């Protein structure tokens, strides 16, 4: 089910969307032909099954949604689930390809209120993530595997002593045996694990190979089986504990400096640079104080990190004292060793640290650069970009006002000749301006591809100078001839210097 559900999940995030009422299959190449690799429940009710040639499936079900199988992507999702589990539920989690996960829950279940509660919780999480899952808990890996994949219940809890009994009715394939052994079983008329287990071991090994015996032993718990647990990557961190709780800002500052130096060394060893750093202070009374700082570009500069953290030092309330502090890079990215740039580039390279300092003071989104957007409508021609982004210049044909009003304001008492003469007089904010000089019109058309009501809209812009020398940017809605282009009202949009 995993490949199918992964596709269903994808469309929720906005990519290609298989509609839920359309049967979905994935295909893989097998020799010369394409066969079905996974089949959604709807397709299964229509008679499709895994391994069926694609041409046949097409003939059976018209309008089938066919996707190429992506085993690598499936594996990545599985890996992420395993990592999540390793962080959340148990220290020992492993991937069982192609679509299974192993959890070692010995000594863990009681933390979640028992095995059943833990299983319910895992199922709930999977469902929220968009996956159907089945869980079996058993003393032996083989039994758990068999029950989870071939058992009847969604959650199967199997005590050790009942393992043999519970899996007895399941088919031999449930034992993870190879196709050859499974075929041999069928030829001998063996339909269940129970029958296999009841047979004498020696002839069994001779007939079906040693593999089957091992699998059988693993299922009933006669041999132990180990798996490679996934180890979630720990965020690079540095920690210090104190013999005496510290209280003063100076002491905290000192520790921040030490921690930053330690973290910087760790980051350097791993070839990483921090993008977000968290400082945790454990107080004597058990309370935890946290400071998080973000960085506009990856860095492992200890002095820079320390100075950013010191800016927020007043947010730490030491209470009765701090007994331990920990600094971790909660977000980091690869950062190669960099050579000191030439003298002229130095200030360029230092810019990120300034941006960080300002951003941590007033907020990340309030430090920015302006860049050009291709739009003739003046208020849409600028947009904010991240401080270190590449900026684009504006076209320079017409002068632009240094102050642009948030919204164009309507002006009154305008005297202007149609269709293309600048106004002779207008009044704005209670003051009348007599125009001495003017330039224009600069015609700007509405962007009908963005807003349908701008289909015919036209603005005619004029630069005007009044008798005191003040310069304004006025526009008239409409081209002065066709009433569909605007109602000929006048607006002020900006002020030149």
């Amino acid at each position, binding site marked *: 089910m995993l490949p199918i559900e992964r596709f269903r999940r994808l469309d929720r995030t906005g990519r290609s969307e298989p509609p839920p009422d359309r049967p979905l299959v994935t295909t893989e190449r097998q020799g010369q032909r394409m066969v079905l690799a996974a089949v959604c429940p709807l397709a299964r009710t229509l008679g499709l099954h895994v391994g069926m040639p694609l041409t046949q499936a097409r003939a059976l079900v018209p309008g089938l949604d066919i996707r190429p199988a992506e085993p690598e992507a499936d594996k990545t999702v599985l890996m992420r689930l395993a990592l999540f589990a390793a962080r959340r539920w148990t220290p020992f989690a492993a991937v069982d390809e192609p679509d299974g996960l192993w959890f070692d829950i010995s000594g863990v279940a009681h933390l979640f209120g028992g095995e059943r509660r833990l299983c319910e919780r895992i199922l709930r999480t999977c469902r929220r993530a968009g996956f159907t899952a089945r869980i079996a808990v058993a003393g032996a890996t083989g039994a758990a595997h068999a029950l989870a994949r071939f058992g009847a219940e969604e959650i199967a809890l199997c005590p050790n002593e009942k393992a043999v009994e519970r899996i007895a009715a399941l088919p031999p394939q449930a034992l993870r045996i190879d196709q050859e052994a499974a075929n041999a079983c069928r030829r001998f008329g063996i339909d269940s694990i129970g029958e296999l287990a009841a047979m004498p071991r020696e002839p069994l090994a001779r007939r079906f190979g040693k593999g089957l015996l091992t699998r059988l032993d693993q299922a009933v718990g006669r041999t132990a089986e180990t798996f490679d647990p996934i180890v979630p990557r720990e965020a690079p961190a540095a920690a210090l504990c104190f013999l005496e709780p510290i209280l003063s800002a100076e002491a905290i500052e000192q520790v921040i400096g030490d921690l930053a130096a330690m973290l910087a060394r760790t980051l350097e060893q791993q070839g990483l640079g921090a993008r977000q750093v968290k400082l945790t202070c454990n107080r004597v009374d058990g309370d935890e104080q946290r400071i998080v700082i973000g960085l506009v570009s990856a860095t492992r500069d200890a002095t820079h990190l320390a100075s950013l953290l010191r800016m927020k030092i007043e947010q730490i309330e030491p209470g009765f004292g701090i007994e331990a502090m920990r600094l971790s890079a909660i977000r980091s990215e690869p950062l190669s060793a960099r050579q000191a740039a030439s003298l002229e580039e130095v*200030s360029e390279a230092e810019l990120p640290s300034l941006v960080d300092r300002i951003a941590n003071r007033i907020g990340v989104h309030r430090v920015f*650069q*302006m860049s050009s957007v291709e739009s003739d409508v*003046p208020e849409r021609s600028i947009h904010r970009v991240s401080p270190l982004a590449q900026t684009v210049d504006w076209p320079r044909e017409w002068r632009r006002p240094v102050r642009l009003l948030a919204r164009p304001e309507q002006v009154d008492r305008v005297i202007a000749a149609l269709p293309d003469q600048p106004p002779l007089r207008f009044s704005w904010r209670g003051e009348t301006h007599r125009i001495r*000089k003017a330039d224009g019109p600069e015609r700007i058309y509405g962007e009908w591809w963005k807003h349908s009501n701008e289909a015919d809209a036209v603005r005619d812009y004029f630069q005007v100078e009044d008798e005191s020398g003040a*310069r304004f940017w006025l526009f008239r809605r409409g081209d002065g001839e066709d009433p569909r282009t605007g109602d000929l009202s006048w607006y002020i949009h900006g002020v030149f210097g």
Partner: protein
Amino acid sequence: MQSHSVHPLETLRAQIRAIEASGLTGAAERLPFEVQAVDGKLGGGLVVAALHEITGATSSPGDDAAASLFTGGIAARLKGMVLWVIQRRDLFAPALDQAGLPPSRLLYAECGNDDEVLAVIEEGLRHGSLGGVVGEVGRFTMAAGRRLQLAAETSGTMALLLRRWRKNGADPLALPSSAVTRWRIGCAPSRALPVSGIGRSRWTVELVRQRSGRPAEWILEGVDEAGRLALPADAPDRAVPAARPDRQIRTAA
């Protein structure tokens, strides 16, 4: 500027200059306006490592815009990145681009109040990697101004405070501050053109105060595409009234 006479008054003046600011003697790096008349009065140009204040001649939007563009022109002629600390969102970047300050050289920080603006300006000044910092600020204390002046002096970064008029109409330059120069920029009628059109704008540029120097006033052509001012080649359309008496009083205060 520097006189070599041994007149006791001159010696005293030199001492006072030395006390007022160590970095302001002839050796300080200056940014010339490249207009002889202006640079002559300023001793060669604006001191780079110092605080300068600019405001509109009146509260009218036209004068405010002229002051903004005047500031943008100075910033454009500085070397390196410029940090522009804003409070209102009406600054229109394409116009600064046309005044010689391309978007790639300009970093914006948007603040909620005067205190935040001052803190960010100081941050920018102390950092030392910027060419200049422009801050749009309404009101600030004498102490805050001194901090900025000190930060500018130590890092060699120019601080330009764009003092915008408030709704209540109080003159931003009414109170003294520790700025090295204070400017008042207003619009002036531009030159009459033989054809219809608008031409280059013209401003009244008033140097209200400068440390160890005299106030002055000019009528100049507005910034060109490289942020430069120019002396008008002819008389303007109409005579601009000479310095108003009320300004004289402020200057003397």
